[in-house]
């Protein structure tokens, strides 16, 4: 292992760990007023949705809505499976199959 690479990795690890610990430190220092506690209950849904939706709708910095957006169509299929089954393997599997099927159909036309 090279020293300068290891140093970079340690620095990356440090800033990442601080981002993870920071929330605990903030809450310890300032507590959580009731208004904030209510607000916090909606943070998980906000973060997880924000992780999903742009990857399905935004491609190379542009909004991509249409039948040629395979991720969007497959994502809708996956969302239905996710809602009904709550099964990760099934959702990812069917979603992937949908992406491949759409790519196959798309390339055939």
């Amino acid at each position, binding site marked *: 292992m090279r020293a300068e690479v290891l140093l970079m990795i340690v620095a990356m690890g440090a800033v990442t760990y601080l981002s993870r610990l920071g929330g605990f430190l903030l809450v310890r220092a300032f507590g959580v007023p009731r208004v904030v506690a209510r607000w916090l209950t909606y943070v998980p849904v906000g*973060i997880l949705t924000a992780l999903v939706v742009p990857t*399905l709708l935004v491609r190379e910095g542009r909004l991509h809505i249409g039948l040629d957006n395979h991720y969007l169509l497959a994502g809708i299929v996956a969302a239905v499976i996710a809602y009904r089954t709550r099964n990760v393997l099934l959702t990812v599997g069917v979603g992937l199959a949908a992406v491949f099927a759409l790519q196959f159909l798309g390339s055939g036309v």
Partner: protein
Amino acid sequence: MRTNSSSGDPVRSALSHSIPIIVGITPFAIAYALLGASAGLMPGELVAMSMLVFAGASQMVAVTMLQEAAVPVALVVVTTALINLRHLLMGVSMAPHLSGTPRRLQAAAAFFMIDESYALAMNRMQRFGFDLRYYFTCGAVFFTGWSLLTGIGIAFGRLIADPFALPLDFIMPATFLVLVMPFLTSWPSVLAGATAAVAAVVGALFLPGHWYIVIAAVIAAGVGSAAETVAARGTAVRQQSSGADGAR
């Protein structure tokens, strides 16, 4: 992830919830290993990064940046910090549930906070309260899985399959689709989700980097909690009037 009325054994539940997610992480780990190798990183360095940073998305961006020999190290570190900024928000929302936990355990809990362990633990918390054994089991599964898969990807990546033949950027969102569903329990939470969707797309279009995740979550939580407040007032008013009716 079946909804049980009893909480069951937290360790066993954690294993059965987290191990399927590892399957979706596998091609991601192989892609990371291959990209890292082509960036000139040595196997030990790649595994060390997985164990010390333990944040897939930022590691992927880092090894992509490092494909260029001249990239400044400071830029890689700053980019890592920006991508991982969302943990701050996740930590704030998780911390109140660990306020009675010893500080050393809180410090350890912070290390294992990734999107997946956070989502699973917060989902279980909604139904059974926050369970450290469940959380740490999930964290250990993801940490072990990510580190091991990095090593496997380095050793056998090229032999197993071409991970880039898979739509990698579809697999993670599909996983998170399942993880977000249990949080959509009320109309304010659905409204918060819809707000996050719109805000994240607008943010991804117009804001640089990964800022859109944190900003969308902040706005969505504001809308969700405002909706809950309005709903609670409505219920209070109705209860008052029905209480008056009942007093007749």
